[in-house]
Each structure stands twice: as structure tokens, then as C-alpha cells.
């Protein structure tokens, strides 16, 4: 068991450019079933062993795909996501960064009435180690196990997965929810999936300053948490009022500060690591209790 993706995951790649084809090859190497890619006008041909389709609808018809991964450039990403939703894809994972917020608001509105789950954009994707990887993460840092892992950050995800793996803490599913202000599966929703996943024994939540997703995740776990959890917040040293990178980590007022997030987790009885390196020990302690 796992959430979002497993051995039955069948992926169509949307945007088989340089980055898309590089990562399609890495996903195949990992054993993910990459069943097709969309490339309008090239339908019926193949590229590096991947069958190409003109439209998502055709790709789904022909391959029974249930997942897509979006690499298309930001100006075309909304269209790609909506095409995947329209084609009835269960899980869309959007890697693209730099998508206008207005586009994501439209996508979010369409998601409200669709059966599709969107992970991202501007995230590394998701991986169920040993079963399927739909993303751009370096696979060697991940290993199968019982830790469900949610992160708003890309490279920090690899860092922490590496620490967990070295500590012998394999992962059930790792979900990079994406760093944009508007994402398809916000941290609280991702946490809920893992909380309800029988294969997940403990949850690691990696947040960032800005927004209040971590606070909501903490509230949820306080009320309904079924398993131990450990948190980490990046940006605790950030001065207020400064915008740190594309992550949308804007600190303003009392909302979204590291303090507010740390307090929320502590009030929910969830230990908060001071540095990524502390996470594995905290997880082990939490599992022992």
C-alpha cells in the first residue's frame, strides 16, 4: 500500500522536451510505467521508446494511463493541466515552475469539481520508493519503508530523504507538494492521505515560512492524527518582510512566520526539528513512543 502512486501507476509525459525526456528516462530506469507522451503533430510515432500522442485524450484511450507529469513551460502549463483533467487522469504531477497565480486559480477551480488530484506545480513530484517515481528526484536517496513524507521544498526533500534513508528509515510515499502559493494538493491534504494510509507508520512534514498550510496540517493532526509525526520548518532565520525565492515564502504580519508554524506543531504534540539532520532521530523517538 501507498498513496497516489504504486506499481499500477501508468504515466503519460506532457512536454517531452530536454528536461521532460531526461526525466522520462530516469523514471523508466526506476521501473515506473511510462506509457506515453503528448507531442502534438507527432502522434503515432515514438521517441526514445515512448509512444507519442497528439492529445491527452488519445493517450489515455490508447494506454489506459492514470497519471501524467507536466514539464511544459509555464505559459502553457495551465492548458496542459486542464487537458489532463479533461482526459480524466487520476493524478497530475506538475513540475513546471513560474506559472502565473491567476492560471493556478483557474486550475484550482476546475479541480474542485473533478476527480483529479494535482500535485505541484513547482515541486519535485512524488515517489513511492520501490514502486513508482513520478518526478525529478534523484532516486538513490529514497528507499522503501514506512515513513510518509510531505514537503513544500524540492532539494530539501532530497536532502531529508537521504538523511532518512541513511538512518534506515525507508519511505512509504514522498510527496513534494510544490512551493507555489497555489498548489493542487496542499500540505494538509497530503498529510491527510498519509494519515489514512495503512502502510505509513509515521509522517514527516517539511514546511516553509509563508502561508498557513503547516498550521492547518498541525490542526488536522491534533484532531485526527493516527500516527506519530515530526516536522521541520525551513526559513526560521529569515528576517520578516523579506521574500525568499520563488517559494512564495513571504513573511508578513503574524501569519506564516516560522514561530507560528513551530507553535502550531508543538501544540499538536508534534516535535519540530531545528535542522534537517535532527529529523531521523526525532522520527525514531516518535516511533518508539
Amino acid at each position, binding site marked *: 500500500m501507498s498513496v497516489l502512486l504504486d506499481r499500477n501507476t501508468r504515466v503519460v509525459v506532457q512536454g517531452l522536451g530536454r*528536461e521532460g525526456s531526461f526525466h522520462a528516462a530516469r523514471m523508466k530506469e526506476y521501473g515506473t510505467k511510462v506509457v506515453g507522451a503528448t507531442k502534438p503533430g507527432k502522434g503515432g510515432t515514438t521517441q526514445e521508446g515512448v509512444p507519442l500522442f497528439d492529445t491527452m485524450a488519445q493517450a489515455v484511450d490508447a494506454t489506459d494511463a492514470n497519471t501524467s507529469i507536466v514539464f511544459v513551460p*509555464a*505559459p502553457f502549463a495551465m492548458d496542459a493541466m486542464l487537458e489532463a483533467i479533461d482526459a480524466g487522469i487520476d493524478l497530475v504531477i506538475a513540475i513546471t515552475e*513560474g*506559472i*502565473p*497565480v*491567476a492560471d*493556478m*486559480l*483557474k486550475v*484550482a*477551480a476546475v479541480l474542485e469539481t473533478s476527480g483529479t488530484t494535482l500535485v505541484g506545480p513547482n515541486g*519535485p513530484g512524488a515517489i513511492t520508493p520501490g514502486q513508482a517515481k513520478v518526478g*525529478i*528526484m*534523484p532516486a538513490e*536517496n529514497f528507499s522503501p519503508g514506512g515513513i510518509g513524507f510531505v*514537503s*513544500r*521544498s*524540492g*532539494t*530539501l*526533500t*532530497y*536532502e531529508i530523504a*537521504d538523511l532518512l534513508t541513511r538512518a534506515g528509515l525507508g519511505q512509504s510515499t514522498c510527496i513534494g507538494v510544490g*512551493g507555489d*502559493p*497555489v498548489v493542487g494538493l496542499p500540505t494538509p491534504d497530503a498529510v491527510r492521505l498519509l494519515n489514512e494510509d495503512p502502510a505509513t507508520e509515521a509522517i514527516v512534514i*517539511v514546511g*516553509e*515560512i509563508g*502561508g*498557513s*498550510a503547516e498550521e*492547518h496540517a498541525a490542526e488536522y493532526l491534533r484532531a485526527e492524527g493516527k500516527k506519530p509525526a515530526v516536522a521541520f520548518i*525551513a*526559513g*526560521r*532565520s*529569515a*528576517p520578516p518582510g*523579506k*521574500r*525568499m*525565492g*520563488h*517559494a512564495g*515564502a513571504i513573511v*508578513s*504580519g*503574524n501569519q506564516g512566520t516560522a514561530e507560528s508554524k513551530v507553535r502550531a506543531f508543538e501544540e499538536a504534540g508534534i516535535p519540530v526539528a*531545528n*535542522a*534537517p*539532520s535532527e529529523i531521523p532521530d526525532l522520527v525514531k523517538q516518535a516511533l518508539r513512543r
Partner: protein
Amino acid sequence: MKLHEYQAKQLLARAGIPIPDGRLATTADEAERAARAIGASVAVKAQVHVGGRGKAGGIRIAKTPAEARDAAKAILGLEIKGLRVEKVYVERAADVDRELYLGITLDRDRRRPVVMLSTVGGMDIEQVAATDPDKIARGWPSPLLGLLPFEARALAFEAGVPEPQRDAVADIARKLFTVYVQTDASLVEINPLFVQKDRSLLAGDAKLDVDDNALYRQPELAKLKEISRDEEAEEKARALGFSYVQLDGDVGIIGNGAGLVMSTLDAVKLAGGRAANFLDVGGGAKEEVVRNALEIVLANPRVRSVLINIFGGITRGDEVAKGILAVIATHPPRVPLVIRLSGTEAEAGRKLLASAPLESRETMDDAAKEAVRLAKEPVRV
């Protein structure tokens, strides 16, 4: 990207929102002429991309063109929060009865725009939100339908806008929502929205921030971009595809991924040091990227050591190592470097760097400690 008040007001006017008669001036002469053309008492207002200009002396009322001239003379050249005032906006003074607040921004939790309306205008709305949240009426229109008339009306009722202005305020809210959508704004605000003694409405001040990610499709707005001296380094970094924020410590930071870089800053602080900057090179850093990043970080004279923290995903450790070696070979840095490479091709990278004049560490914590230690050492000559 921030717009100036006068630019934002032009966009409001184009959408049919009433604004006072106003003219831009870059000299005292121009300000005097502007006041004469307006033919009434005017406000002379500094045009700078920071808040709080009123308290900093950036706004003056002038009853005559001569007074407007003096006001402009006093304001032009002023430094407000580090920004030099180079333009003033000369605007007919309003006959103010009351002040309202109207603003639209993103509600991340609801994944919708939020329209906020309050009869407590002219104040810092975050202050009001914190102390008096009930004073702000909020509405969350669908991004697919826009702010519907009934929603705007309900906001005006909820905020307690009285009868003579209710419909007009609802109408302005709808027009402002159109501006928000059409300009890809991340924030648009009329604060204060004046109710004049004759009961008419007028945008007293206007703020409009554009979503940087949408500038590619807002060519007209992109042209309005102005870079202050303070923002030059950030801007230069942005042009290279980096995110850069200058801070006030002495450990220069380069990393890939916003979360990782923030954690690196945190690690430096935990190690007892202070970061000089935030610099995220993004994905796929190669030689030139590393060189450019180092150049930006080292341009800050406060930097006494540099910590490079790369966790390879798209980015390959060997490429990063090659970049660092090339930079060291051609432009030996003036301060010590500490490198931490992990992830894709990290081992290959570490091998390449083995004999280079720099410190390499396996973990973020160790690298941060070393960078902090080096920053505290006496300067090498």
C-alpha cells in the same frame, strides 16, 4: 513587481474608477506647473516603492502653485527607507468626509482571490485585521465568474457602507476586480478610498503589485519596471535566473532550491553565524551559473566566507564542481569557500574538488559550522 501610485491610478481610471486630477513631476518647476494646471489645493506625493512615505515626510499639502514648488523641492531627493525620491505626483486635494479601505489579493488557503472592504480606511489593513477583524468584510469570488454584482453588494452591506455610497462602492469593487484580473495583480488596493463631502468617491491612494510570473503576458506593465539601487543586485540575479535577497550577515550562501537555501541560512544561524544573503541558483547549475552566483555573492563587501550547498537532482554535482574549479582558476575568490555537495553525481564532484583550495564537507550542518568559523577568522591578505 510594484507599480507607483500614479501608474496604478492610471490603470484604475482606465477601468472607470474615479481618481483625483493629477500630474507627475520630476522637478520643482514641473510640480508648480502641475499645481497651476490643476488650479486648486494639491497633495504632493513621493513616488517610491515603499510604504509609510507619509510618516517619512513624503506627502505635503500645498495651497498654491508656489507652495507646491516648495513641497516638491523638499520631497525630491529625500531618502525614504533607503530609496531616493525621484518623482512626485501632484494631485488635486480631496474634500474628505470619510475613508474606506478596498483591497484584493490572494487567499492561499481558499485558493481564491479575497476582496476586502472596510469602513476603517487609511490604516494599515494588517493592523486592522489583527486587532479588529470584524471591521473587514471579505468575499471570495470565483476566478471563473469574477466578482458578481450580488457579491459586491453583500460586501458593501457587510462592511456597513452607508446608503449614499453603497452601490458606488460595490461598483468600484467590481471594477477593481477587473483590474486585478486584467493586470495579473498579486495585490491591488485603494487605501484610503475617499468619501468626499459631496458624497462622491475617489481613490485616495492606490497600490498595485503584479505577479512576476505573469509579466511575460503583461508587456505594457513590464515596461514600467524600475529598479532602485537597493534592488540592483536582486534584479541582476533575477536576470540570471536566480533568486537573491541581501541580508546583513557575513556568510555568503549559494544553494539550489528555495527550501534548501533557507535551511542553509537556518544552519548558519544555528552554528552561531549570520548569512549575508539568500541565493537560489535554481535547477541545473553549470559552470557559468556557479561563476555568476559567486560574483553576485562576492559583490557584497560584507561577505567573509561563502558556503555553497548543492543537493543534486536536476543539478549534477560534477558540473557544479567543474564550475567551482573554473572560477577558482580564473578569478580566485577573495574569501574562503566551503562546499557541500550531495545527490546526483556528488561523489564525482567531490573527487574533482579534492585537491582544490577549498573546504568540502559531507553534511549541511558541518559545512555551515566551517563557513561560520572561517567568517570569524582574521581576513587573509
